[in-house]
């Protein structure tokens, strides 16, 4: 009986989605997208229009979004906090090759992540992608040195200060440009296709990259090591 209900519900869902899809299919850009595509370059002097939308036009959305990520990571850390009953496998020492390779590769991986989020206004990529790359470097460290804990103080300070920097950049836009996260009158817009251009956008995307990177690194550490301590005690 339950199987039949499931099949009927899923078939209805599939048919509805397939029937509704052409309604949303536009013949050209919508009004909002048209405005962004025409004014994005002049307003922000950045080559990547998606970055203009994410950081500038809908920057408030992005601020809420990194907050959601922060809340879910804190939620996971809270759920996995120390308590009896959590079974954790005894950490096995990583091999020499992994440890040496991790020492060698960690700095280039973090440098690459930084490159991605600093160039977010010019090329595909930005804070989220760069932050994920930085977090994958931290994952390599976690896999190689299972007995060395991460510097939690450093990570949480980076996370808090970059969140604060994001809000400060938004308030600077309110003060100088007249609206929250406005990209006017704070930093010079510069010339198109230069690293130091697009006003406040690379600064904000750097903050987003640091914030996302430290949040994802904390998340990986929490998932791997939470409640490890009671096993060792």
């Amino acid at each position, binding site marked *: 009986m339950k199987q039949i209900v499931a099949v009927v519900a899923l078939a209805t869902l599939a048919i509805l989605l397939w029937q509704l899809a052409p309604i949303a299919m536009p013949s050209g850009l919508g009004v909002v997208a048209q405005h962004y595509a*025409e004014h994005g370059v002049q307003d922000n002097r950045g080559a990547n229009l998606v970055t203009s939308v994410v950081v500038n036009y809908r920057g408030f*959305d992005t601020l809420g979004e990194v907050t959601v990520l922060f809340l879910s990571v804190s939620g996971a850390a809270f759920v996995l906090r120390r308590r009896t009953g959590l079974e954790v496998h005894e950490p096995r020492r990583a091999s020499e090759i992994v440890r040496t390779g991790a020492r060698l590769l960690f700095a280039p991986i973090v440098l690459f992540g930084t490159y991605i989020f600093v160039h977010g206004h010019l090329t595909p990529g930005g804070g989220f992608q760069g932050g994920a790359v930085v977090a994958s470097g931290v994952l390599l460290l976690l896999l190689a040195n299972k007995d060395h804990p991460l510097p939690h103080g450093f990570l949480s300070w980076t996370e808090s200060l970059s969140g604060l920097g994001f809000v400060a950049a938004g308030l600077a836009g309110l003060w100088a440009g007249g609206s929250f996260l406005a990209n006017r009158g704070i930093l010079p817009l510069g010339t198109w296709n230069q690293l130091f251009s697009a006003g406040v956008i690379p600064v904000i995307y750097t903050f987003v990259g640091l914030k996302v990177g430290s949040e994802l690194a904390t998340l990986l550490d929490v998932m791997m090591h939470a409640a490890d301590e009671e096993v060792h005690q």
Partner: protein
Amino acid sequence: MMAGNELYVGTAIGLIVIGFVAVLTRRNLLKIVLGFSIADTGVNLLIVSLGWLPGRTAPIVDDPSMFSDRAALAVNAARVVDPVPQALVLTAIVIGVGVTALMLAYVIRLYAVGGTLDVRQFGRLKW
């Protein structure tokens, strides 16, 4: 509809349905979370494929003459796909990983409490 994106829309709908099949019919908690994650990927693919316009390029301006004046900007706007759904999906993917991590944390905690991943064993809040 002959817009050229039927293949992508169909794949996205297929992913959503397969994800919900896992949620509705599997009894293993990890499989249920995996189903949500697959459905999430399908929704993202659906949104991006609806914002896609055939024959247009990515919304990145690569030609300096494209913003010399208003007319050139209008020409550029006719060359690119819709950047808004892409920006939306960019944040949705990151939120997806946060939500998945929270669900997995609950799965690990439930396994520690109940010693099983079978969803039928966790019926204490059922009425």
